[in-house]
């Protein structure tokens, strides 16, 4: 067997490295897709006239808070990436849970909170299911929020080539905020 030349050995090594990159990119793209969605959520929410006032991220759980500078209405988003495994992502698609909140500063904060507390029901009904709108408050800032739990199909918004469907995402975010605003006003206005 002839001794391989320097360039032949370099070629074999190059092949091993390239094959490793293919797998690395597959895993990396699977893990990064939620970060791409976070960037897209920030972009479309700012395009709608808000500013980002809080951003916390540990790589899997991403928490965002926005404020509309004129009317001080706030939007919160808590996004958790649910499919951080390549096999699971291939099987069920890329999924994330998203809790969206819409809040406004309430002048009669104490009265509204009393009314919300009195509505406590049996305790048998589970919260946190898709489409259920719940109300809560941040007593420090005197904001009352309407919030809803959703599960997002990330593949709708982030393509295989990692292109972002901003228009679709923007329409979904706008519709959610619009619905939550209506729920909040319906609950807090006389």
């Amino acid at each position: 067997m002839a001794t391989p030349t320097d360039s032949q050995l370099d070629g074999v090594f190059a092949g091993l490295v390239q094959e490793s990159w293919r797998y690395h990119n597959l895993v990396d793209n699977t893990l990064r897709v939620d970060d791409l969605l976070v960037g897209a959520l920030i972009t479309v929410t700012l395009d709608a006239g808000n500013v980002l006032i809080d951003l916390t991220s540990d790589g899997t759980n991403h928490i965002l808070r926005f404020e509309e500078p004129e009317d001080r209405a706030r939007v919160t988003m808590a996004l958790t990436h649910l499919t951080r495994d390549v096999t699971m992502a291939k099987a069920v698609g890329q999924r994330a849970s998203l809790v969206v909140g819409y809040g406004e500063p309430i002048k009669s904060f104490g009265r509204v909170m009393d009314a919300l507390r009195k509505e406590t029901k049996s305790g048998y009904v589970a919260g946190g299911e898709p489409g259920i709108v719940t109300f809560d408050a941040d007593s420090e800032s005197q904001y009352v929020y309407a919030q809803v739990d959703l599960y997002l199909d990330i593949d709708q918004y982030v393509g295989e080539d990692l292109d972002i469907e901003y228009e679709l995402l923007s329409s979904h975010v706008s519709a959610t905020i619009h619905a939550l605003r209506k729920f909040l006003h319906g609950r807090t206005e006389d």
Partner: protein
Amino acid sequence: MGLLNISGKFKHRAEIRESKDEILIGEIVRAMAHMGHRADAFAADGETQRMRFRTRDGVLSYIHIALDRKTGEGRIASAVIGSKATLSVAGEVKNLLSDPDDVVHMWKTDFKNIAKLGMRGQVKVDHELNSIVGRTTDLVEIDKFVLEGDEGVQRLTEHLEERIGRVREALAPYRK
């Protein structure tokens, strides 16, 4: 997850003045998205906030932006010296390093750049593992860019485009 759980994770800043660095981060993400660069990594704890962007650029694989707020969180400091921060823009050329001869050539370039500081628009080029990184850092006034409407967005976009252009130019010879 209940909303109070979410609220508990925020820092409860007293005024929007204290959130100016987050506001700037948001505007950077949006400006970069409009330039076609997609944020794919956030490290947002502590004083320094870092983001990585994927590009479709023929030279740059990634753009990294780091914001480190230096002054202006207090009312008096904000009024007297403004809200200053260092804004670093770095470009990364990632090569596969499949040829050992390439690696050896890259290492040699490190010594040529060791004296450059990368401040005030100057680009410092380094090799780190299998990447070549060009970085430039500016001390910026956050108020120039945030809560200034379209003018602020325009200034920020121009600043980023100009810095990315410089970094790109410095790194172009290293793209294989």
